[in-house]
């Protein structure tokens, strides 16, 4: 205990105040930095020494700089960010689909459909005249054009979703690389010392995680070295300083398949933007796209069936009004292929799509309904030399070696809308009559006009307009639930962010008060040193 120790105490006080001022000014500087956690200096008493008068402290010591950080809130924010990413992606995508079916704004198929069948009534009212026939062909063209453009819009939305998934995957990989780098830096900085915490680096890493949460759902695990392991879809994305690359590839039916570390994880990604886009894609394909295609296919099938039996003004018969339905097959196999496919009877088609799966153990194939999953043809022996598969109105032959994961898709619907077109140009060939050379005969025209009121077996026993209305209301419901979900997630996110800010955010008022406080203590410490200096000078002059 000496005068010099006063200098030491003063020095420690000066350093402490200086550091505290640095931390405060850092807080003020970062008041607008997103994800920044307020830091505070932790001061403690320096080890006291024993003197004759008792224990005397040796000044102040900085035991650490602490980040105001609530791990629980952070975890909640990450989880909420994943939900929000999904809701936002679904709301956005369904909003685009809704605008295709928005009857109140004039888009959609309803009025074109009504006009078309009304045009048949005009022909029935005046079968000998050219004018209603020409008008009928025009209205039919409008119907086909509208349907085709609706399908194009839906397909472009789906493609946009696929592109969105690819972009998100690229961003995920970038963020993963950044997290891996930060892992290395944090481990390095925190190595050895149990008290040191790489505050700024951890804040940065948390920022990266927040951005990642918007994209995909993941879980994290932090080990003792401060290194974070990030797993997506139960595979490691980031492990220490190593990353695995997430990739997305388009499948044959227009959706995306995610692969991480060699394993397909598409089924395990539910949240985030990627999860939302995947879910929206699959929902849109199974409701809006299939619904539109089935409706158009049913109209084609029913009108053609009646029209072929009728006679035109020039006596011609057996003419299709619309271009007939065509079969499309898609192959998901390396060894086998479809060698023959044909529609054997247009009228026998049930307008379902089929999936062919294989069981190499039993050497069999089976056919399932693609939409419902119901078995259409149970396990039947498969011959690699060529197996003919017969379905209502369809006959397909598959040949070649198969594996258990191979699938084939058989569908009369895939091209139903893109091929939807009027197959005749001559108004005189429009079949209004039921027998040749009877110009006033309007029975066929009347039958076709009455199709609007006929319940269609292939559409689940509903009439055309009800089936279409169901599609529109399904789209409306999906959009409604997506936007409601988004509102809810947004609200929750705001509440959580506000909570986080209240814990970790910088309050300028508080920092201003701290500034004053540490400034005063700095001044006092400086004063103390000059007093100690004076005391020493007094002693030296003795």
């Amino acid at each position, binding site marked *: 205990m000496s005068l010099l120790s006063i200098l030491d105490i003063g020095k420690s006080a000066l350093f402490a105040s200086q550091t505290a001022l640095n931390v405060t000014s850092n807080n003020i500087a970062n008041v607008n930095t997103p994800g920044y956690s307020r830091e505070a200096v932790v001061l403690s008493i320096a080890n006291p020494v024993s003197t004759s008068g008792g224990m005397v402290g040796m000044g102040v010591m900085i035991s650490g700089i602490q980040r105001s950080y609530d791990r629980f809130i952070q975890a909640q924010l990450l989880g909420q960010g994943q939900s929000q990413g999904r809701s936002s992606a679904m709301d956005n995508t369904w909003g685009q689909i809704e605008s295709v079916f928005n*009857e109140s704004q004039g888009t959609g198929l309803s009025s074109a459909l009504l006009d078309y069948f009304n045009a048949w009534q005009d022909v*029935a009212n005046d079968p000998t005249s050219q004018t209603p026939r020409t008008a009928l062909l025009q209205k039919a063209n409008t119907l086909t054009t509208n349907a085709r453009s609706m399908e194009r819009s839906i397909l472009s939305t789906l493609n946009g979703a696929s592109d969105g998934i690819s972009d998100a995957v690229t961003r995920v990989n970038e963020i993963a690389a950044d997290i891996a780098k930060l892992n290395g830096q944090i481990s390095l900085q925190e190595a050895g010392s149990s008290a040191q915490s790489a505050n700024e680096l951890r804040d940065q890493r948390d920022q990266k995680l927040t951005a990642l949460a918007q994209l995909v759902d993941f879980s994290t695990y932090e080990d003792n070295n401060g290194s974070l392991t990030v797993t997506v879809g139960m595979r490691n994305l980031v492990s220490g300083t190593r990353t695995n690359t997430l990739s997305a590839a388009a499948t044959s039916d227009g959706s995306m398949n995610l692969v991480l570390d060699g394993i397909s994880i598409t089924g395990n990604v539910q949240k985030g933007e990627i999860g939302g886009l995947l879910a929206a894609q699959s929902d849109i394909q199974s409701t809006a796209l299939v619904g539109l295609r089935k409706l158009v296919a049913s109209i084609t099938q029913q009108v053609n069936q009646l029209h072929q039996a009728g006679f035109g003004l020039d006596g011609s018969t057996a003419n299709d009004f619309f271009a007939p339905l065509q079969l499309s097959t898609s192959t998901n196999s390396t060894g086998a292929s479809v060698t023959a496919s044909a529609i054997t009877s247009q009228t026998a088609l049930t307008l379902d799509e089929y999936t062919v799966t294989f069981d190499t153990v039993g050497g069999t194939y089976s056919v399932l309904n693609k939409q419902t999953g119901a078995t259409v043809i149970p396990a039947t022996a498969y011959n690699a030399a060529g197996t003919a598969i017969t379905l209502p109105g369809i006959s397909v032959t598959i040949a070649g070696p198969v594996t258990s994961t191979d699938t084939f898709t058989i569908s009369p619907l895939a091209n139903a809308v893109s091929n939807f077109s009027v197959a005749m140009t001559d108004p005189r060939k429009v079949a209004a*009559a039921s027998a040749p050379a*009877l110009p006033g005969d309007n029975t066929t025209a009347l039958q076709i006009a009455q199709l609007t009121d006929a319940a269609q077996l292939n559409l689940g026993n509903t009439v055309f307009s009800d089936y279409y209305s169901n599609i529109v209301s399904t789209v409306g419901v999906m959009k409604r639930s997506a936007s409601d979900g988004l509102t809810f997630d947004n609200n929750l996110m705001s509440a959580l962010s506000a909570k986080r800010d209240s814990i970790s955010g910088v309050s300028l008022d508080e920092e*201003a008060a701290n500034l004053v406080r540490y400034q005063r203590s700095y001044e006092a410490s400086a004063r103390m040193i000059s007093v100690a200096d004076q005391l020493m000078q007094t002693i030296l002059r003795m």
Partner: protein
Amino acid sequence: MQKTMENYARLNQVLGSGKKILSPSDDVSGSTRALAYRVNINGNTRYQQNIDQATARLNVTDTVLTQLYSTLSDVKGLVTQSAGGTMDAATRTSLSFEASLFRDQLADLANTKYLNQYLFSGFRTSTQPYSASTVPAYQYQGDSGVMNVMIDHAATLPVNVTGDSAFSAALAAPAVQQIGSGNYVHYTPGAGTTVNVEIRDNTDTAVLDTFSYSNIMQMTDLLSTAISTNDTLRIQALVTPFSQAQDQLATTQADVGARLLRLKDQSSLLTQGTNTLQTALAAVEDADMTATGVELQKTNVALQALYAASSKIMSQSLFDFLK
């Protein structure tokens, strides 16, 4: 602030379009109902148009049938006049000529065209139903096709009248009659609307004369020839057929009248239905302009207040007070 702005923009759109349902997701059940109402209204409008066209056609038919009836009455008068057989050659010639004129008039009326199609030909609308050059003359060239139009969901109405049913005096079963001179006349139905007539003697054994007719034009033609040759038996044999033809024409006219009445009733039913549907559609879809306008004003005021408050809050901090 963002929420208020979104609300403001939406209210603006509602006011501009006049509809409170801007997209299906705004009100799913409402927009489904609105779609169904629209489909129904469209159907009703369509049926209304069909009814208007059918009414026009049936009105023309009715007019022609009325004229035909009056001409047929004149022919009947001629029959009664000449049945007595007490006319001199000059009268007979002029009456025969009159009968032939009536025959031509009947044929012309029966050949009426409406919208460039023959009214009474059934489905063979480009074929003239009655012509003097056919063999036999004035044989019906049309068919019995009935043209239906839709006047409601599952309801159709025939809009044409075919010549073979309107202008014939077909018999269901053979009939025998005794005419004024004591002769027996046998009427036997033949193919289609043909009636074969046998005039026998007073004892109903020997066949004196046979002829056949299938429509009023042929009957009038026969009458004209009979008058000029003073074949009173034939003239008398034609009395009952003409009565029957008149009844048949009257029945056809009544049927057309009933159809027109049906169309009128259906039309007013559809109009009422359309009004109800449009009211319902407006209730679901249309925005209450006054209420929306007030809402817009309120939102605007809230927005302004928000702006003012925010600017005050955001500009102050402790630093303003420390020197």
